[in-house]
């Protein structure tokens, strides 16, 4: 019996192809760093070597030694924790793009769905009075509300595509900008702008802020936790942040919270839906061959809308968890730019070949690169955009991952003679001796 080569397993080839893309991407980044460093006189050679090491191992660095100025490496809990914190929205937006891609749709509308999610969550978290409903219930309502808002916003391009045949890329881009403007409009007219801290009215409150609605001298106003004398408290709201669940003691000094656990759980749930349920099978069938799926009786239109709704829910969850983190402030005049995490989600999904479990790892990897880039800006003359270059090269290479996979399988085939040949020769009645 033919020994089953590792290279013959489809999954192994896919992972190897992704790893090769990552290696080549890192190499490309290193080459750019070295070339720019050598051609620019103001960057010392030691700086170049530092930058090369930081781009790969930045999350493990512990800063510069005060005496020698050399970089030290080791386990840095705060960076590691921050990496987990930043991976949370990346994994979820990656899931969003991945589900849509499996159904044959390109969800470039993740930024808009992210904005819908964060808006709904912030409105719910900061408006429902915690004196009436306990804080943990408000959190759940806000989180589910964010997912629902994202799902509804994701339905719009889905409906436009299934009912009116509008190209989903265009519909998603339009809804992105519509979301950006709508969110600014909604927050402009709301009372959630940060009035408690001096210069921060451009931001919404952090969800960990406790806001008291008070009446003082017959005038309704708000205050923080220091309630002024003679004021009567009407309601308390805010103070609704994701619990840390002890992760902050494991990774001291970082911003990590339980959101990363929720993100990984959602990825696993989505994997189960896509691989083990009928719904997932139907969605994947629509993605592989629309016409065959239709012939088999699968309702294409319903599946397009459902897929975009799921994708929107994931992106909405990303925004929701980010906003509910308690230490993040949302800059509400967002009509001029879209959140970058929505577009990085595309890179995450493509690197993971749209596999929900793979998205966990590629999300962590993108977050790692993000932290490495920050270290580059802090410690060297370079800047964090080199990590964006690396991510772009990796996405470019994943476009022809099929070629890399075929190349991988060809290498093994060339070295073995085909063991089926003798059997074929006998079947065809040929008396030729076949080399084994």
């Amino acid at each position, binding site marked *: 019996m033919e020994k089953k080569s590792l290279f013959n397993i489809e999954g192994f080839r896919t992972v190897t192809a992704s790893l090769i893309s990552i290696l080549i991407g890192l190499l490309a980044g290193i080459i*750019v760093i070295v070339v*720019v460093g050598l051609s*620019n006189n103001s960057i010392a050679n030691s700086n170049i070597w530092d930058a090369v090491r930081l781009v790969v191992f930045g999350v493990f660095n512990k800063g510069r030694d005060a005496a020698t100025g050399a970089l030290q490496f080791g386990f840095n809990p705060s960076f590691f924790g921050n990496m987990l914190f930043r991976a949370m929205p990346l994994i979820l937006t990656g899931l969003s793009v991945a589900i849509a891609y499996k159904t044959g749709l*390109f969800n*470039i509308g993740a930024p808009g769905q992210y904005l819908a999610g964060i808006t709904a969550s912030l409105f719910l978290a900061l408006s429902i009075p915690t004196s009436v409903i306990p804080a943990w219930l408000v959190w759940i309502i806000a989180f589910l509300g964010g997912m629902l808002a994202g799902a509804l916003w994701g339905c719009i391009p889905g409906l*436009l595509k299934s009912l*009116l*045949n*509008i*190209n989903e*890329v*265009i*519909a998603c*881009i*339009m809804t992105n*900008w*519509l979301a950006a*403007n*709508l969110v*600014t*409009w909604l927050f*402009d007219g709301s009372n959630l702008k940060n009035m408690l801290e001096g210069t921060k009215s451009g931001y919404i409150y952090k969800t960990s802020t406790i806001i008291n609605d008070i009446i003082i001298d017959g005038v309704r106003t708000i205050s923080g936790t220091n309630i002024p004398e003679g004021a009567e408290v009407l309601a308390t709201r805010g103070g609704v942040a994701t619990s840390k669940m002890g992760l902050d003691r494991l990774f001291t000094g970082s911003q990590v919270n339980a959101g990363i656990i929720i993100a990984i759980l959602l990825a696993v749930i989505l994997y189960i839906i896509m691989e083990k349920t009928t719904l997932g099978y139907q969605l994947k069938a629509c993605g592989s061959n629309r016409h065959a799926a239709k012939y088999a009786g699968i309702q294409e239109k319903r599946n397009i809308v459902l897929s975009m709704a799921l994708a929107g829910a994931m992106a909405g969850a990303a925004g929701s968890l980010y906003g509910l983190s308690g230490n993040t402030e949302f800059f509400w005049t967002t*009509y*001029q*730019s879209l959140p970058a995490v929505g*577009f990085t989600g*595309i*890179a995450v999904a*493509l690197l993971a070949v749209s596999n929900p479990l793979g998205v966990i790892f590629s999300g962590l990897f993108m977050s790692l690169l993000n932290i490495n880039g920050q270290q580059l800006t802090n410690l060297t*003359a*370079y*800047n964090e*955009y*080199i990590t*964006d*270059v690396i*991510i*772009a*090269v990796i*996405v*470019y290479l*994943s*476009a*022809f991952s*099929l*070629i890399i996979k075929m190349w991988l399988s060809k290498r093994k085939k060339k070295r073995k003679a085909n063991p089926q040949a003798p059997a074929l020769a006998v079947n065809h009645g040929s008396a030729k001796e076949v080399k084994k």
Partner: protein
Amino acid sequence: MPFLIRQTLIYAIPLMIVALAGVFAERSGIINLALEGMMIFGAYIGVVCMNVMVSLGWFNAVKASGNMWGMQGYLLLGMAVSAIAGSIFSLLLAFAAINLKADQTIGGTALNMLAPAIVLFLVRITAKQNNLLLSSGDSATWFMIKKSMWGFDKSYKFGFFGETFLNKVYLTTYFCILLFIIMSVILYKTRFGLRLRSCGENPQASASLGINVLRMRYTGVMISGALAGLGGCVFAVTTANCSANGDVAGFGFLALAVMIFGNWKPLPIAGGALLFGLFKCIAASYNTLDINGDGIYALANLGISSHFYRMLPYLITLAVLAFTSKSSRAPKAEGIPYDPGTR
């Protein structure tokens, strides 16, 4: 009113040219989502080229000679360099899509991520900030066509046509309109254009007649890159005031929308670009818009929130797409890698 028309043209021209860039690529069979990236790259190279010319002293020499028409020649030179840069950048997409038969949407998205990353990386290192500006002056001082250049002094009042088309305009507007007409004629009335279009509809049939499909597709993508780079330079000069910050305000994607809106045909694309430009202009300046010159700011008095005006271009696009998408005629073979073996 003249201001309205001038501003509309300034918004509409980059959209028009970049949408035509998309048409050339898609009509030859390659989905080109990387228009945004090519624009960003073209804008950066254009500004770098201008900076080089400033440092060589050419601009100041023209200013000293008193005849500002010489600046227009340098503007055209900058645009040509941007076009060549965009063309070279588009080779990445061409190679991946044509030779390696990669997924063209992913390749386009990769280029869209690569362009701002490379541009911002280089801008940060050279300019120590996130924005690359001209080292002296800006596009209004160097490239804007003003009354004084025609020989009138500042107090002379132009009529309606003079005020709209001859004062405070850029040469890029008229050059791009001319280029648009020439490229459309090439696409529809020449043999080359017919062959290019056939490669996007049925490449196997074209191959059977002896057309080299791969070479046609390369040409299509490279023309697309050139026009998109040119559009980026025009954006940098007219809208971004000769600065490059790695961002073209989503114009590349809007141009994609205009292309699909215009059903991959030049005349509807021009109409769509003008419509879009008009609404963007209204959104930006509705408070001070005096439509018929009677001193009444009609739109400001309506009391509609400024946020709604900013959403208007996108809503209108979706509304028109809703009505026209049933008859949308994308090139039949676009997005499918060319396989000589199939029928």
